[in-house]
Every structure is written in structure tokens, then in C-alpha cells.
């Protein structure tokens, strides 16, 4: 019995040295992390609210006309955002026309067609491209891309397609087409990497079934993989569109910054994001600032809708890599 008593004594000494657990600590930490997580809700509301109160007078004054008129005259306090909306949509569309085929083809190359040893390095390079800051791409756009475009591809396009309204008129250099091209470079990494994820999540069974029927590599890719992943790839494209619409620095540096609606892609344009970047600090009157806030609101509204759509499309397919097992 003496042994048992000494054990009991020792137990007390070890267990008694430990601090008594506090439920407060657990509760406090949970609430703290919850408060931080709710930041994402607060931020969304904050953006919407700040843009709304910043532009409420302009919204009242111009109403719907703001979106459909094209006079942008700060001196006369006439503000119509149509040229910027037009420029944003057209430049993003050009970007998608270039980036979607290239991005999806590259994603297919990375997951299906490329030799295995090349896949990882290539993926890393694409991630590096994504890491280049927008302003640096803009710098390169001004001093390298535009002079080259002006000297070689643009005249060639004009010779071939000059009879259409899209490629007519004089070639300046900075223009809608240059803006679209630079945006394409900016969104290529995201379209490629999201598409790659989508294609990777296509079950191998799909490929095996196609190969089992005697399909060539391309046929298997086209029939079994690409068509299977159609919806996800569409999500990737929409996500790219969301980024394209909000792209600011690079496009501001090459698009020419002229608020006009012109058919020719060789003419300068202007986007919602660019006008904010260029004119915000120059807004001298209250109404001018109000109008710019409203531009911000329009841009936020468009991108949030596009992003919602993209997330919904991707959500249904996205395989959460880490769904935690219950136990």
C-alpha cells in the first residue's frame, strides 16, 4: 500500500503543476478568429458603401444617363461614362480573343500533350509571368511592344484587313488593340493555370476510355478531356475576363487614353480603370470626384458580377483538395 500511496503523491505533483484549463482562452480565440474571418464580409460591404456614398450626388444628378452618354467634360461638369465602358469591354474582348485559345491550348499541352519532363518547368515559368507587376509590363509595352507593333504587325494587318472598319485609319501606336494585347499578356497566366487545374481534375478513366477505343493523343484530348471540362474551362475564361476588366496600369500605359468610341482598333481608347488612374488626383471639383467615384462603382459592379459568375462556374467543379475527413 505504501507504493500505491507514493504513486498517488507523485501523480498529484505532476498534475498539480499544470495550469487549470481556461475556457475563456478557447472562447476568446475562437471569437478572435471569427472576427478576422468576417473581415471578408466587412470588406465587400465597405467597398460597395464607400463607392456609393462617394458618388451619390452624381448618381442623383446624372441618373441612367451616366452610363449611356459619351461626353466627358470636367470643365462643363458633363459626365458620361460610355466611352470608358466601351473601351473596357472592347479591350477585354480583344484580350480574351487572344488569351483564351492560347491559354487553353497551353493548358492542354501542359496536362495532356507535353513530354513529362517539360511540364513542371513550364508551369513554373507561367507562374513567374503572373508575378510580373502590371506597371513593368506597361513599361515594356510603351518602349518595346508598341514600337514593334507599329512597325510590323499593324501595317500588315492594315494591308490585309484595312477594308474593314476595325483596321482602318492611321496607325498611332498606343491604341485599343495594343491595350487588348497587353491585357491578354496579363490574363494569360491565370487562364492557363486555372484551365490546367480543370484539365487535371478530369478523371483518368475518361482518357483511358478514349485510348481504349484507339483514339490518338489529340483525339483523346479533344473528345475525352476538353469536352468533358467544357464548363470548367468556361469558368476559367470568365475569371480571366474579370481580371481583364479591372486591369489598370499596363493598359493605361498603352491604350492612348482618349475617351472616344471608334470602330478602328488602331485608334486610342480609354477604360474605366485607366480614367481612375489618370484623373483621380486631378479631380478639382466635387462633381468631378463624384463622377470618378461613380466610375469606380460601375467598375466594381461589373467585376463583381463577372467574378460571381466565374466562382459559381468553378465552384461546381473545383475539387477541394483538402476536404477534411470527419475523423
Amino acid at each position: 500500500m505504501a507504493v500505491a500511496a507514493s504513486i498517488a503523491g507523485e501523480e498529484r505533483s505532476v498534475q498539480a503543476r499544470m495550469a487549470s484549463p481556461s475556457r475563456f482562452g478557447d472562447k476568446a480565440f475562437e471569437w478572435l478568429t471569427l472576427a478576422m474571418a468576417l473581415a471578408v464580409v466587412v470588406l465587400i460591404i465597405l467597398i460597395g458603401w464607400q463607392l456609393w456614398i462617394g458618388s451619390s450626388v452624381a448618381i442623383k444628378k446624372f441618373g441612367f444617363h451616366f452610363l449611356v452618354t459619351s461626353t466627358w467634360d470636367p470643365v462643363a461638369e458633363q459626365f458620361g461614362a460610355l466611352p470608358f465602358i466601351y473601351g473596357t469591354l472592347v479591350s477585354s474582348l480583344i484580350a480574351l480573343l487572344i488569351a483564351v485559345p492560347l491559354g487553353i491550348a497551353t493548358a492542354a499541352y501542359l496536362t495532356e500533350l507535353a513530354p513529362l519532363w517539360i511540364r513542371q518547368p513550364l508551369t513554373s515559368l507561367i507562374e513567374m509571368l503572373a508575378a510580373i507587376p502590371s506597371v513593368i509590363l506597361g513599361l515594356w509595352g510603351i518602349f518595346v511592344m508598341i514600337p514593334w507593333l507599329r512597325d510590323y504587325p499593324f501595317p500588315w494587318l492594315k494591308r490585309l484587313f484595312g477594308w474593314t472598319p476595325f483596321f482602318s485609319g492611321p496607325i498611332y501606336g498606343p491604341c485599343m488593340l495594343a491595350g487588348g494585347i497587353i491585357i491578354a499578356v496579363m490574363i494569360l497566366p491565370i487562364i492557363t493555370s486555372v484551365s490546367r487545374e480543370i484539365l487535371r481534375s478530369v478523371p483518368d478513366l475518361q482518357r483511358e476510355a478514349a485510348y481504349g477505343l484507339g483514339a490518338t493523343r489529340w483525339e483523346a484530348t479533344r473528345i475525352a478531356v476538353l469536352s468533358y471540362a467544357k464548363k470548367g474551362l468556361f469558368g476559367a475564361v470568365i475569371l480571366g475576363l474579370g481580371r481583364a476588366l479591372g486591369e489598370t496600369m499596363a493598359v493605361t500605359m498603352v491604350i492612348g487614353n482618349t475617351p472616344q468610341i471608334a470602330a478602328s482598333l488602331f485608334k486610342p481608347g480609354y477604360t474605366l480603370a485607366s480614367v481612375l488612374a489618370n484623373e483621380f488626383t486631378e479631380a478639382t471639383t466635387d462633381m468631378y470626384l463624384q463622377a470618378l467615384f461613380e466610375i469606380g462603382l460601375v467598375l466594381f459592379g461589373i467585376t463583381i458580377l463577372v467574378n460571381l459568375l466565374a466562382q459559381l462556374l468553378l465552384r461546381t467543379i473545383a475539387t477541394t483538395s483538402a476536404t477534411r475527413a470527419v475523423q
Partner: protein
Amino acid sequence: MKTKRSGNYTWRKIKSALASAIAFISAVLVIAPLGLVFFHLVVNGASSLNWDFFTKLPAPVGAVGGGMANAIVGSLELLALAGAIGIPIGVLGGVYLAEYGSARINSVLRFLADVLNGVPSITWGVVVYGMVVLRFKGFSTYAGGLALGLIMIPLILRTTEEVILLVPNGYREAALALGVSRWKTIVHIVMKTASKGIITGILLALARVGGETAPLLFTAFGNRFWNHSLSQPIAALPLQIFTYAISPYDDWHRQAWAGALVLVTGVFCVNILVRILTRGHTASVV
């Protein structure tokens, strides 16, 4: 594919090879800008990089020389401020999603974080302008840091959540079975185990906002001189590059290239560091 299998086979093989070739050319076109940009950065920027660039203030208009010392320091100051805001909120928020939140709350929060990640960075500039610059009557370091910090929150939140979910449940159970409280288990065991991944996410977020210009245009605003107070405008590398790039002076263009080379080198270094970190990470945790 079903009927004329043998007859068309050669043509089909050719088609397949052709498709592979087109896909390969696409991949080359996608990464071509990376190579071209880097090439031109080195060619145009390296010659203007010298000791003065890192130690001197910008030269007055017309004068040759000068540097971007204030912009480099300014960028670091802004990043420190942004980190002070974005890191704690992002990391702890990610912890909530991974450790506490119910499936329904999580899917909403995750969704909103992804949507936030898609908000154009210039929008943050406008919002912070309204919140801080208008209210406190002036551009400031605070405003710039806040704008960058807010951008970091959803980025860090998502990566933190992901890496914490990768920590095997066995470690949580082992700690809880020792009578350790839940929050200490999370902080000392789970977050420590996932620390490499969390740091990776933070570094990537810093590299991302370190290259941001748009949110700084009307918050930090830029400054040709040293900044002596956080309530004053401050220079930042990307801002300075932008200002110089759209200026009409050749010397400023050279400075812009040099600044861009420095900025890209910094961003790439972080990316490479992250790659090295994650290599160890996948070996030890997953």
C-alpha cells in the same frame, strides 16, 4: 473512329502531331513575354544601375543622375504597414475557416474571399481614398499601407486555410489528448506544423502587393523626397517607375528601366524562395 479505323489512321496520326505542335507553339507564345520582358529589363536597366541608384534621391527635372533610394525604402515601409494589417487578419481568418467554421459559413466566406481577390486593385485605391485621404485631408503612408494591406487579406486567408487543412488530424488529436486546450493546440501544434505553408502564402502576398501601383496612385501618392512622417505622402518603387515611364525625359526612362529591373528581381527572388520553401514543405507535412 468507329468504322474507317485503319484507312484514316495515318491522317489521324498526322492530325494528332499537328495539334501537339500547335499546343507547343501556344505554350511558347505564352511564356515569350516573360523572356522578352526580362531580356529588355536587363538590357535597358542594368546600365543605369549603380551605387547612386540605391543611395540617392531622384534628380530634379533636367539634371542627370539621381536614384530611387526613397522609393525603395518607401516600398519597404508600405509593405511593413500592409503586412501589419493584412497578415494577422488573413492568417487568423484562415485559421477560423480551417478549424472552427461550419461547412455553410465556410463556403460563404470562402466564396466572398475569392470574389474579393477578383476586385480590381484600383478599386481599393478609390475606397481608401474615400475612407482615409478625404477624411484626413491628405495623401499619406497610412493610406497606402492600408490599401495594400486590405488587398493582402483575402490572399493570405485562402492560402492559410488551405495549408492548415493539410495538417493531418492526428496531430490535433495527439495534442488534445494531452489535455492541451483547443486554442493552444491550434497555435502551438497546428499552425506551427503549417508554418512553412503560411509563410509561403504571406511572402507571395507581399510579392504581389509589392508590385502594385494602382492602389497607391491616390493613397501613398508618391514623393520626390524622403518621407519623414507616416501621415505624409511617400514614394514607392512601382509608382516611381510609372511616373518616369510616362514622362518625356530619356534619363527618366532609363531610371524607370533600372527601377523595374530592381522590382522584378525582388519579386522573382521571393518567388524562388517560395519554391525552395514549398519543396521542403511537401516533403515534411503532406
